[in-house]
């Protein structure tokens, strides 16, 4: 497969996954904002999430203070903010268009009509009442895209590179959301302390983990178990362990002459997550652990790019 094609497929999937992650975050905070007693806790959660996702600076260039509804609109529909959901959907579609011959027509049509519909969302004048509807729609389109990818694409490099993009992005997103809540999650000596129920519901809902948590632990929500679920549980689709396992496996399927070291590092990250325990993470401190993880994930992304996607100029 052409390196450029692999690059477009990788980014196509990353952008769709990113749109979904953002939609989940907006959705979780939006629901919380509808509760009468949320107030400061919600604004605080929103603010730390914006910092972790590097949204805050761009937002503050256009808005004075953090007003939840303005944040939701900015992240969802702002056509001038390159990181907004609609712009992620546009970028996913542009990447798909550049390699539409390598996609099944079902997949291309899904991404293309997602973008066409996103444009009409942008064109409407009353997004305020539409936010809940919009983010729900984004999640559905992401589910649909993933389903069409899995259901129609040949299991060849095109598929594997698209999956690598999906899971690197997802791992990145989960780690950043955890970072935004790292203070509430600091599992100290007293593991039974429940800081703020709103924070939990936002965090768990944003990662589609609220129901999963109940099902797995059948217990009250504690920071220790939340962290365990989102970092170490192999059966949790958005956990760091699960994402890194997928990245490692898909990398094995696209192996080339120069990718040995990249594959080794991916395996190492996965092994570290697979064999570590919560106690070890608590010992180094969650913030430090997440910071290290994000750095290693970034290194992995760079290595995938130079091994496969944008190989250095031909000698």
């Amino acid at each position, binding site marked *: *497969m*052409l*390196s*450029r*094609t*692999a690059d477009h497929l990788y980014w196509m999937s990353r952008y769709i996954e990113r749109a979904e992650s953002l939609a989940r975050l907006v959705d979780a905070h939006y629901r919380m904002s509808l509760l009468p007693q949320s107030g400061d806790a919600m604004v605080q959660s929103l603010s730390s999430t914006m910092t972790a996702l590097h949204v805050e600076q761009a937002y503050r260039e256009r808005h004075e203070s953090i007003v939840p509804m303005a944040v939701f609109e900015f992240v969802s529909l702002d056509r001038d903010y390159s990181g907004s959901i609609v712009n992620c959907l546009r970028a996913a579609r*542009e990447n798909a*268009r*550049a*390699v*539409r*011959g*390598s996609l099944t*027509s079902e997949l*291309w*049509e899904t991404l*293309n*009509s997602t973008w*066409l519909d996103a444009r009409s969302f942008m064109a409407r004048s009353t997004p305020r009442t539409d936010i809940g509807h919009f983010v729900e729609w984004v999640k559905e389109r992401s589910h649909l895209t993933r389903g069409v990818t899995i259901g129609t694409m040949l299991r060849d*490099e095109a598929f594997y*590179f698209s999956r690598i993009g999906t899971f690197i992005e997802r791992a990145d997103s989960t780690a950043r959301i955890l970072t935004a809540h790292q203070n509430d999650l600091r599992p100290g000596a007293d593991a039974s302390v429940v800081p703020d129920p709103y924070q939990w519901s936002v965090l768990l809902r944003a990662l589609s983990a609220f129901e999963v948590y109940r099902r797995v632990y059948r217990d009250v929500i504690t920071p220790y178990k939340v962290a365990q679920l989102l970092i170490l549980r192999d059966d949790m689709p958005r956990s760091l362990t699960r994402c890194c396992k997928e990245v490692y496996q898909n990398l094995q399927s*696209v192996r*080339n*002459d120069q990718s040995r070291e990249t594959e080794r590092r991916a395996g190492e990250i996965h092994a570290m997550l697979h064999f570590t325990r919560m106690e070890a993470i608590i010992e180094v401190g969650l913030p430090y652990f997440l910071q290290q993880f994000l750095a290693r994930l970034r290194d992995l992304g760079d290595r995938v790019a130079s091994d*496969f*996607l944008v*190989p250095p100029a*031909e000698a």
Partner: protein
Amino acid sequence: MYPTEGAARSHYRLYAEWLAAQPAERLAQKRAEADALFHRVGITFAVYGQEEGAERLIPFDIVPRVLPVEEWAKLEAGLKQRVTALNAFIHDIYHDQQILKAGVVPPEQVLCNSQYRPEMQGVDVPGGIYAHIAGIDIVRDGAGEFRVLEDNLRVPSGVSYMLENRNMMMRLFPELFSEHRIAPVERYPDFLLDNLQSVAPTGVSDPTVVLLTAGAANSAYFEHAFLAQQMGVELVEGQDLFVRDEAVYMRTTQGAQRVDVIYRRIDDDFLDPLAFRPDSMLGVPGLLAAYREGRITIANAIGTGVADDKSIYPYVPEMIRFYLGQAPLIPNVQTWMLRRQEDLDYVLAHLPDLVVKEVHGAGGYGMLIGPAATKDEIEHFRKLIIASPERYIAQPTLALSTCPTFAGQGLKPRHIDLRPFVLSGKDIRIVPGGLTRVALREGSLVVNSSQGGGTKDTWVLEDPC
């Protein structure tokens, strides 16, 4: 379709009956459905210089253009003859130049043409084929006779619309296809791939074919992606290819992979910055050198453009006689060459009745349509012509045939042409029909998509009952 008021020509009869039985709402709904489908599938083209309409649909008309099979058979024979002669001509002008020595075509017309590539002199290409893919524009004049309006031998486009229009018609009106025996066009991508493989450099057993595009911003990008996908070959941009030791490779996730045949959809000028335009970002440095060594096949060959230049077009019937010893089966449209004094005098005296075209122009730009032009436009063109008459040819405004077409609320006659696609390799193949383009504006003769033209499905009816 209707030679006299009320009576449909026989090959249209079944269709006309069907059409008359359709409620207006159903047709309107089908037309809306077609638009939505084209949008969703992204069958669009880019219009240069229009930011807002960066991607637009080519209007699709749901009324097909019908050709009876016996008319098509005549056309097919004429097209094969013409393309055979054109290929012989291109080979000749880059080798012995017999046609120039014989005085059939003036040497300066060829050798001083900007599309003539001296780099190609003495270079042997596989099978002696230069124009592997040719789009020959055909019109029917007032007397009902087919004529060639233009040869497109560089990077003719439109074949994807021929295929998608057929898909669309089958999706919208499946019942029509069971009632009529319509010659299929689906195999075009198979034929194209087969054709490209058949002209691979000698000694290559399992050739790797790629399609070279200028990228997603190009107006015909949809077609490039479509054909690459249908053929199952890589769609590459210049940056994906490189030349090493006079062989061409593409950069893949598994390292460098050898390429044998390039179906290029960019012009000569942009192919190789070392040989042609140095500022081209679209090409592949060193490609010409590899080509001259016979290490790669480029389709269409470099230097075919000289043969589709409008200043060469008037000589094509002579080429057919010269190389094949045959009388041309499809005549040209009468053409005045303004470099000749008597032609120039005639044309300047009859400007309001004629179509004047720039010899190097393409896409319906740079032309004057006398009957539709204002006095000022005509006078402006008169000055241009007098300043450099050799840059222009003129043709009569043909009473082009028309075909019923949806316009506003109902069916109206609109002018049409036909572009069949001729594939030359080991043999010559043409799928029945081609792309029918239609001038959607009332009275307009310009069918180009960039200037308000649309398209129709084209049916070669095997069995007019």
